[in-house]
């Protein structure tokens, strides 16, 4: 192939202008004539039966136009068809504080807000289940009757290779417990949707979703309206990170309220509601047992995970499998056993957040490898290089690995950061840590079973030389529109800014499954390449005929089709289009992509983990610890990332830096935590996403391995680079103060406790983290006791008054 003219160049992002100038129309910026404003009434109870729900007073309130409740949409819905356990609005029972119970449409927001207090709802409280440990108890009430044992949602047990023999042959064993605290996406744009049901019986919803296609399917089910009559338009996104990839109550409610009132209805969540919508990072308790030979070679790994799933399934099946599936792709593991359990609790449902399910176990594994390196006296960077899973191989759990650049990442990182020279050599309080990781470039299987493409695209050329790409992808800021324009431009020999992109619209564009699991560049990129390549052939034929030059000698670039040997010999792109259209008729081509078969195993549960290609990355973190106040400052994070090929280097660097920022926030302070069923910090003041002042110096190193199946060799860049950051920081803190942080987040209080400075009697510790399963239980029960105590005290005070 001739040199690329668009891809790999530092060009402006094509869709940035609207965002930069403020003219981008987010869902909440849409105002339609006669539009009503909706609001959701949410449960004040963590776990209760609804004994009364009477909307008559609210309905009589001046300005209220319609109210819908759970029984109006009785179908179960949910992102994974096999485990749907939600309804659009709660029916008979609520399972977390903040669960939507009813929806009001009124002439303005104030009226909707006022009318909420006029809905009469009464609850019969049930004991809330708030911890993994309590959810595993058989003697507590079930959150979902379908759970066969305790409050277990899903249990997974997989075993590969000879685990016993592996452990028996080990020279050294480690058995470590970890806990990863839950956290949430905190997108700056809160969720918003506008639905409009028209006189022709067709419904359109504009919504900031990551998954227009899956939402389309669920709307059909919940509303009883054929999909042919529904159009989903994904609006410009102010951040998703996985938090907008479920179908949500406000979307269903806006649609039904519009159908009832025949007027457009907008529902925009307030910030607190975004914390209740959640679907964020699962809290996960983990245990890893690893055997190694004296030279560090891993002989066996037994990994166990307990996921706190919250009240509903969301992507929970995939999350559960993902905690185990990708442990094998980075380092050679000849025997591997994985046991995973996801439980229901009375908290907002957890789901996918950037790194979906793999972030927590990767943190645990990379922290443990750091311990093994210390145990055996190895340099942690060199050690990782010695045990790498090779390129073009199969893992023990039968995942196909193609390109694999983790070794190059480690090399580049070592050269850049001088990790090996500095680790263990810095003064007390200063530390440097390293970790590697991996992620999928899209899932091998779709969320619902089918044999159709995962991504489709059409490319249309008009006789004026215009190019339009139609693809159902959701642009969530990750750069998918720019990717589509760039790949089409590369194929056709035009500039990205010449390409119109129509995306995220189920009526106008072919299906793409959505912006999740880092699939879009790989899959939609291949689909649009497939489509554009067909048109390229026609254009080359036309130019070849006109110039009487063999087509092998012709190359399209910069709006010309030029003779490679003589740049004076060319046909302009516009002329080539006219010639081709005269010959073939209207110029339009469709392309699609479906991952190859046989990239994973055939065992039950083999569906989660396979990907057409894996990204690899490694990070070095540099930290300073204030030994007196316990405050940890992360000074710098450097990440080297194998993205196959950087189609847009600036965009890849942006993803690497954004991931580092997000990972930093997750380990240094963000936590989605609860007190007696109530979210402890549902605001951006109390939920501590880092500010620009807190953010470390961030550095991105692009490593290219040119994957043979990726579009022009590309793999993912949006999620993987988060995974290595978190354990790198934990390992750096160990280097700084000799304390292992086997739980997140790392807070000043925990550092002081470890340093023996929390109180006068404090003894230094070398580790902060869980000891096993039971130790979270006491705190939870104490919280419950405290809750009932406050209630009793209040009652007593009332009685005395």
């Amino acid at each position, binding site marked *: 192939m001739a040199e690329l003219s668009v891809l790999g160049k530092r060009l402006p992002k094509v869709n940035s202008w609207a965002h930069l100038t403020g003219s981008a129309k987010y869902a909440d910026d849409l105002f339609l004539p006669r539009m009503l404003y909706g609001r959701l009434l949410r449960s004040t109870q963590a776990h209760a039966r609804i004994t009364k729900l009477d909307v008559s007073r609210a309905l009589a309130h001046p300005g209220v136009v319609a109210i819908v409740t759970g029984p109006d949409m009785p179908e179960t819905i949910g992102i994974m068809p096999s485990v749907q356990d939600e309804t659009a609005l709660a029916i008979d029972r609520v399972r977390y504080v903040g669960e939507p119970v009813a929806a009001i449409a009124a002439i303005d927001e104030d009226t909707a807000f006022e009318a909420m207090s006029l809905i009469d709802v009464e609850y019969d409280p049930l004991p809330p289940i708030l911890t993994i440990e309590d959810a595993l108890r058989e003697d507590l009430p079930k959150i979902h009757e379908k759970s066969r044992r305790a409050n277990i949602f899903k249990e997974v047990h997989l075993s590969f290779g000879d685990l016993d023999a592996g452990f028996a042959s080990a020279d050294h064993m480690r058995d470590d417990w970890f806990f990863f605290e839950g956290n949430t996406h905190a997108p700056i744009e809160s969720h918003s949707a506008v639905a409009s049901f028209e006189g022709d019986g067709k419904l359109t919803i504009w919504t900031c979703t990551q998954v227009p296609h899956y939402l389309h399917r669920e709307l059909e089910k919940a509303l009883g309206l054929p999909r042919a009559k529904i159009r989903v338009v994904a609006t410009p996104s102010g951040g998703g990170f996985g938090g907008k990839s479920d179908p949500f109550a406000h979307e269903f409610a806006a649609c039904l309220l519009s159908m009832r009132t025949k007027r457009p209805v907008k529902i925009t969540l307030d910030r607190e509601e975004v914390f209740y919508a959640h679907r964020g990072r699962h809290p996960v308790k983990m245990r890893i047992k690893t055997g190694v030979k004296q030279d560090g070679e891993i002989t066996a790994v037994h990994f166990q995970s307990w996921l706190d799933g919250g009240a509903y399934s969301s992507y929970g099946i995939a999350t559960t499998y993902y905690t185990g599936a990708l442990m094998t792709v980075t380092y050679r593991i000849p025997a591997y056993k994985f046991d995973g359990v996801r439980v229901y609790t009375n908290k907002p449902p957890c789901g996918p957040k950037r790194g979906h399910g793999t972030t927590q176990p990767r943190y645990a594994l990379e922290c443990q490898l750091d311990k093994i390196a210390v145990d055996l006296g190895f340099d942690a960077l060199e050690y990782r290089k010695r045990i790498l899973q090779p390129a073009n191989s199969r893992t023990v759990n039968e995942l196909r690995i193609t390109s694999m650049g983790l070794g190059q990442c480690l090399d580049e990182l070592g050269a850049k950061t001088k990790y090996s020279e500095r680790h263990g050599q810095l003064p007390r309080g200063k530390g440097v840590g390293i970790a590697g990781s991996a992620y999928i470039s899209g899932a091998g299987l779709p969320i619902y079973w089918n044999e159709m493409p995962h991504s489709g695209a059409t490319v249309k050329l008009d006789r004026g030389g215009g190019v339009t790409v139609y693809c159902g992808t959701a642009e969530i800021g990750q750069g998918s529109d720019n990717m589509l324009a760039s790949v089409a431009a590369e194929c056709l020999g035009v500039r990205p800014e010449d390409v119109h992109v129509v995306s995220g619209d189920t009526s106008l564009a072919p299906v793409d499954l959505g912006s999740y699991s880092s699939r879009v560049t790989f899959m939609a990129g291949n689909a649009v390449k497939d489509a554009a390549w067909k048109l390229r052939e026609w254009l080359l034929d036309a130019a070849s005929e006109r110039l009487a030059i063999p087509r092998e000698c012709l190359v399209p670039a910069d709006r010309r089709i030029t003779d490679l040997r003589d740049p004076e010999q060319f046909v302009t792109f516009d002329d080539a289009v006219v010639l081709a259209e005269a010959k073939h008729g209207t110029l339009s081509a469709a392309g699609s992509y479906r991952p190859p078969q046989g990239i994973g195993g055939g065992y039950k549960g083999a569906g989660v983990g396979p990907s057409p290609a894996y990204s690899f990355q490694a990070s070095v973190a540099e930290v300073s610890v204030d030994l007196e106040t316990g405050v940890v400052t992360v000074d710098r994070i450097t990440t080297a990332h194998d993205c196959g090929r950087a189609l847009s280097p600036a965009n890849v660097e942006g993803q690497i830096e954004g991931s580092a920022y997000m990972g930093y926030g997750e380990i240094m302070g963000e936590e989605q935590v609860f007190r007696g069923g*109530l979210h402890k910090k549902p605001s951006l003041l109390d939920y*501590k996403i880092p500010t620009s002042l807190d953010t470390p110096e961030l550095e991105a190193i692009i490593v290219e391995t040119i994957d043979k199946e990726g579009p022009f060799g590309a793999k993912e860049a949006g999620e993987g680079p988060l995974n290595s950051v978190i354990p790198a920081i934990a390992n750096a803190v160990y280097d700084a103060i000799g304390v292992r942080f086997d739980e997140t987040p790392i807070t000043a209080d925990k550092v002081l406790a470890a340093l023996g400075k929390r109180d006068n009697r404090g003894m230094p510790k070398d580790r902060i983290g869980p000891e096993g399963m039971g130790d979270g239980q006491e705190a939870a029960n104490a919280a419950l006791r405290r809750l009932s105590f406050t209630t009793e005290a*209040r009652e007593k005070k009332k009685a005395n008054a």
Partner: protein
Amino acid sequence: MLRLPAFTMERPGTYAEAATLLRAHGAARGDLTRGTPSLPVMLVAGGTDLFPNMKRRQFTPRVLISLGGVADATGIARDKSGLRIQAGTTLTTVASDAQVRERYTALAEAAVLVSTPQLRNMGTIGGNICLDTRCNWYDQSAFWRGAEGFCMKTHPEVVCRVAPSSPRCLAVASADTVPALLALGASVAIQSADGTRTVALADLHQEDGIAHTKIARDEIVVSVTLPDATGWRSTYLKQRDRGSFDFPIVGLAVAVKRDGARVTDARVALTAVASRPQLVADAAKALIGGSLDEAAIAAAADAVHKAARPMDNTSGTISQRKRTARVFAERALRALAA
């Protein structure tokens, strides 16, 4: 998003008019009531704290009296007794004023650490002095507090959520500028329809999360005066989770007056570790007459540690904040000794 409750707005042109309007709209003379969500009338200056609180229905006044249009409400002027800062002066102006930065360093350092640049452009020094106390059971939406069952700060019939047996509200003093002003010996001019009184800032706040100031509902803070600072050096240290936005979880100001090496006067003030900002008299005592050596610093830090009585109702933890108060006392005093 959350919506403001309905209210009407008055825009007086003078403090005297504002004081008359306060009475006219139902603020009773000398009324020290705080904490109930249905106060009839409230003042608003920058609005950076009041409006979010109103959106969360912590306050639902029927009338707001804006001080934004009051003549001569802003400005910093030097007179023979020291420096007078009009209450409506924004925190940005206070933080960037050359006299404040040079002679009253702690105040400039505190003002620039309040929240974010945008909020400092709106928020005023007077507003910061009157800042409502904070608590993570109280600074929540109406929905959240309703789900919890509210707390005594808004509902007298309910217990304190932080410590159910507590007879008083434990909400936390959270203004950054107040400890700096305390350390600098500030006094405050307060006007009502009856006239103007001057109070030492040290006498203005009290250890009660609800009735946290002795400013009556019909009174207006109009200015704050700092005494002459000749011979004084001061500094403010703030602990918070992030480099912006956050309220203090420990705030410590120190001012020291020296004659040669000898400390002739000192004030150490602490906030965010109790319901009131406080001068730590024992810390000052440990410093006065000495030479700011390590022994004196340690004694002062001990006194600060003892005075810090945080509760579990802000970010961070009790022991972390208590310890940080001590460390900050050491660091601030060492910085001034240098």
